[in-house]
């Protein structure tokens, strides 16, 4: 599975848009990019997933350039409750006999 690299931590303020970029230079053709959110003392929660271009849901947007070697999670108008750890994962389409490995994630802190 492709290794991912993302910033260890980020700070922002309420009402701002936050963009977290993840690098995955060795992404394979049949890999998808998936983002999870984790609050303290809870398990991660799926946020969004994409293959290429742009995906948007009620929580976030995911931007993937044509070469797919990176992706950017965009959180619009963040609030204090968006303070969490955000993980970028590259997962193989079709499943397969692989585990689901999380990296260190990005600790996002939102201030008033």
């Amino acid at each position: 599975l492709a290794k991912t690299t993302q910033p260890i931590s980020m700070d922002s303020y309420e009402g701002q848009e936050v963009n977290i970029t993840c690098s995955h230079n060795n992404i394979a053709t049949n890999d998808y990019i998936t983002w999870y959110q984790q609050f303290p003392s809870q398990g991660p929660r799926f946020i969004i997933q994409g293959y290429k271009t742009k995906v948007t849901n009620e929580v976030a947007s995911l931007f993937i350039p044509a070469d797919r070697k990176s992706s950017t999670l965009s959180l619009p108008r963040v609030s204090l409750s968006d303070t969490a750890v955000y993980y970028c994962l590259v997962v193989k389409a079709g499943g397969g006999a692989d585990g689901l490995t999380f990296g260190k994630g990005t600790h996002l802190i939102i201030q008033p």
Partner: protein
Amino acid sequence: EADIYQTPRYLVIGTGKKITLECSQTMGHDKMYWYQQDPGMELHLIHYSYGVNSTEKGDLSSESTVSRIRTEHFPLTLESARPSHTSQYLCASSEWVSPGPEAFFGQGTRLTVV
């Protein structure tokens, strides 16, 4: 709300005791996972299964063992608990479908070995 359950939520146990952490899901998912996570630290995959009677070790070596006799059930056992096993243990499950699987997590078991 995901239908994956872990019991107990909290467990304090003495050194040397045998413990089993329970994980069940009602979604019919083929794949299940166990993770270990210390507060503020990285999630480490310790075991996973892609179906009944299949189990694999994860990225982090663990003294625990798992079994998958039924699709919905994936218990984790520590034969002899030690203080170094103190941690949070998270169970997850996902389908084996295309595109890549969305995993659902349980609430976790916080284990303290004294």
